[in-house]
C-alpha cells in the first residue's frame, strides 16, 4: 500500500470518526429535548470534532488521554464504544461507568482514557502524573491532555506545565480554544488571544493551528507527539475552533452574536473534510452517503442498547468507592 493510499485511508477514517462524533452528539441534542431520556446537561463538541480526531489519530492505542467535561469526541476518537457511552449518558447500569459518572466525567480505561474530569483545569496535573509514570517505566508512550481556553486561566494548568517542562515529561497539552468559557468570550476571560504564547513561559514549543482543519491538526500533532515520544519533553498545541452549541443544551446562546455562529458554521470541520475529499476525487457522494448511513446505524444501535438497558440498583451506589482487597 503506497503512502498516498494510506493517506486516503487515513482521511476516510478521520472522516468517519468525525461523523460519528457529530451524529452521536446530534442524537444527544434530539434526546435532550425528550424529557427524562438523558441525565444532566449535555456539553457537546459540535464544531470541534476535528481536534479530537486529528490529535488522537497521531497517538498509539496505549498512549493515554486525559479528557474534560467536553469528552464525547475525545473518547469516541480514542475508540470508546458508543453503546457504553450512550448508556452512561442515560445513567444506565450498562454505562461505561455503571451510571456513576453520567456525561461529564466518563473514563474509558479500555482505551487508555483513564481519567476524565469536569473540574476545569483538573486534567493537566493528572496528565503530569500519567506522563511521569510513562517516563518512569521507560515506555515510549505519551499522554495527551485536552483542556479549554477557559481552563488556561486555572492555576493548576500552570503548575502542571511548569512541572512537565522541568521534568521533560512526555505530555502534549492540547488547548481547544473554542472562543468561549461558559458565557465568557476569550477576550473577557484571558489576557491573551493566542494561548499558545504561554508555552514560551515554560520553555516548551507551542503552536496554534486551525482547529477546524483535521489534516493540519493531525500534522502538527504528529510532530509534537514524535518530539515528545523521543524524550524531548512536553509541547503545547492550541487548536483554534468554535463551540457551535451552547454550554449545555439548556443554553440558548443568548450572548452569542449570530453572525459569529454563521461564519464558523461555514468552517464546519466535517464539511470541510468531505468537500476536500470530494474535490480531490478521493470519495464520491455515494460513498459519503454510505458512511452516513453506517454511522446512523451505529448511533441508533447505541441508543437502542442504552434505552433498553436498565438503571443500576439504588444500593449499588455504595459500590466502587474502594478497591476491596
Amino acid at each position: 500500500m503506497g503512502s498516498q493510499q494510506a493517506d486516503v485511508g487515513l482521511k476516510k477514517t478521520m472522516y468517519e470518526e468525525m461523523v460519528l462524533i457529530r451524529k452521536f452528539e446530534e442524537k444527544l441534542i434530539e434526546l435532550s429535548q425528550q424529557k427524562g431520556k438523558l441525565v444532566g446537561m449535555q456539553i457537546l463538541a459540535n464544531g470541534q470534532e476535528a481536534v479530537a480526531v486529528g490529535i488522537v489519530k497521531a497517538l498509539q492505542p496505549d498512549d493515554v488521554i486525559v479528557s474534560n467535561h467536553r469528552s464525547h469526541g475525545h473518547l469516541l476518537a480514542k475508540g470508546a464504544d458508543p453503546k457504553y457511552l450512550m448508556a452512561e449518558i442515560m445513567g444506565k447500569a450498562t454505562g461505561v461507568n455503571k451510571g456513576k459518572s453520567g456525561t461529564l466525567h466518563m473514563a474509558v480505561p479500555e482505551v487508555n482514557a483513564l481519567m476524565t474530569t469536569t473540574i476545569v483545569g483538573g486534567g493537566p496535573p493528572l496528565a503530569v502524573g500519567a506522563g511521569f509514570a510513562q517516563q518512569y517505566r521507560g515506555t515510549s508512550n505519551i499522554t495527551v491532555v485536552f483542556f479549554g481556553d477557559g481552563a488556561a486561566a486555572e492555576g493548576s494548568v500552570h503548575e502542571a506545565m511548569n512541572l512537565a517542562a522541568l521534568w521533560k515529561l512526555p505530555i502534549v497539552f492540547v488547548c481547544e480554544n473554542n472562543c468561549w468559557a461558559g458565557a465568557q468570550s476569550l477576550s473577557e476571560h484571558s489576557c491573551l488571544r493566542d494561548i499558545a504564547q504561554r508555552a514560551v513561559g515554560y520553555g516548551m514549543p507551542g503552536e496554534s493551528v486551525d482547529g477546524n482543519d483535521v489534516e493540519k491538526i493531525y500534522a502538527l500533532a504528529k510532530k509534537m507527539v514524535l518530539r515528545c515520544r523521543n524524550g524531548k519533553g512536553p509541547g503545547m498545541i492550541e487548536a483554534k475552533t468554535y463551540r457551535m452549541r451552547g454550554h449545555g443544551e439548556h443554553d440558548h446562546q443568548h450572548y452569542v452574536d449570530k453572525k459569529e455562529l454563521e461564519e464558523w458554521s461555514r468552517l464546519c470541520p466535517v464539511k470541510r473534510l468531505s468537500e476536500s475529499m470530494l474535490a480531490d476525487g478521493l470519495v464520491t457522494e455515494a460513498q459519503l452517503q454510505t458512511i452516513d448511513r453506517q454511522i446512523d446505524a451505529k448511533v441508533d444501535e447505541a441508543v437502542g442498547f442504552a434505552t433498553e438497558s436498565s438503571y443500576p440498583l439504588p444500593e449499588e451506589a455504595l459500590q466502587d468507592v474502594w478497591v476491596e482487597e
Partner: protein
Amino acid sequence: MAVLSFGQALKDALDVAMSKDDGVFIAGEGVGVSIHYNPNLPTHGLLEKYGPKRVKDTPVSEAAIAGLAVGASALGLRPVVEIMFFPFITLATDMLVNHAAKLRYLSGGKSSFPLTVRIKAGVNFAAGCQHSHNLEAWLAHSPGLKVVFPSTPADAKGLLLSATFDPNPVIVIEEMLLYWMKGEVPDGDYRIPIGEARIVIPGNDCTVVSYGGSVYTALEAAKALLDEGISAEVIDLRSLVPLDKVCLLDSVRRTGRLVVLHDAAKFGGFGAEISAIVAEEAFDALKAPIKRVAARDIPVPVSPPQEMFNKPSSEMVIAAVRSTVGKR
C-alpha cells in the same frame, strides 16, 4: 412585602446592597453574563443595572476570585464573590481559610476583611460528584469564617444582606434547587442577624435540626409524623457559624430527643457538631439516642435511582424520629 423566588430574593439583597453602598461589587464566573438566562438566578440583570465596573465576570480562576475578595476587602470594599459549585471551593480554600479567615488575626486586629462568598450548593442536580459535594462542615471548622445556609427566600435575602455588611468574612451557601421556590420577602434593607436559628414548627416530642434545602425534608417528615401523633419541632439553623446554641439546647431540653439532618455525607458532617454539642451540654435532658440522617459516605452518583438513594429522604427522618420516641 413582595412574593419573590429564592433566587430573586438573593438578587434583591445584592441590589439593595449595591444601591446602598458603592463599595459593594460582585464578581465570579458568569455573574454578569450567564449561560442561563433566567430571572430566578441571583445575579440576573445586575450587570445591566450596575454596569461592568461593579459586576465582574472573571476568568475560571477560583483562587484569584477569592484573592480578589480578600485583597479588595482589606482596602475597604465589600466584595460579594461567587463560587459556582460547592466542590470548586477546594480551589479557593487556601485564600479563604488561610487568608480571609486568618489575616485579621495575624494583623493583631488591625486589618479587616468584610467579604462575602456565595457558594451554589446542591446534591441532586444530576451533575455528579465533582459538581455536588456539600462541604459546609469544612468551612464551619475554619476559625475566622462565618457560615450561613438559608432555606427560605426571606432568610436568603436577610442573611445575604447581613453578610454583605458584616465586617467579617461570611460564607453564604445557596441551595440551588430552591432558586425557584417562592415566598414573601420584606422590602428594602432587610437583614437577619447572623447566628439566629428559627423554629419552623414548634413541637414537643423530638427536635429535628436542619438547614438549607433539607429543612423541607424535615418539614415533610414532621407533617407525616403529626398524623401519627408525634409532634416534631423543626429547627432551621440558618447560621452554622456562629451557631445558635441557645435555640438548639432549649429545644432539646424541652423535647428530650434530637434528630439532625443534612444533605452532606454523614461521616464528619456538620450534624456531628450539633450532636456533640447536645451530648455535651444537654445530656441530662436526652431521653433517646441522637440520630443523624444524612447522605451516604460516598461521592454523589449520577444515575437517577442512585442519586435519589443517596440523598436523605423524609422517610429516613420519619424512621429516625420514630425510633427516638420509641416507636418502630
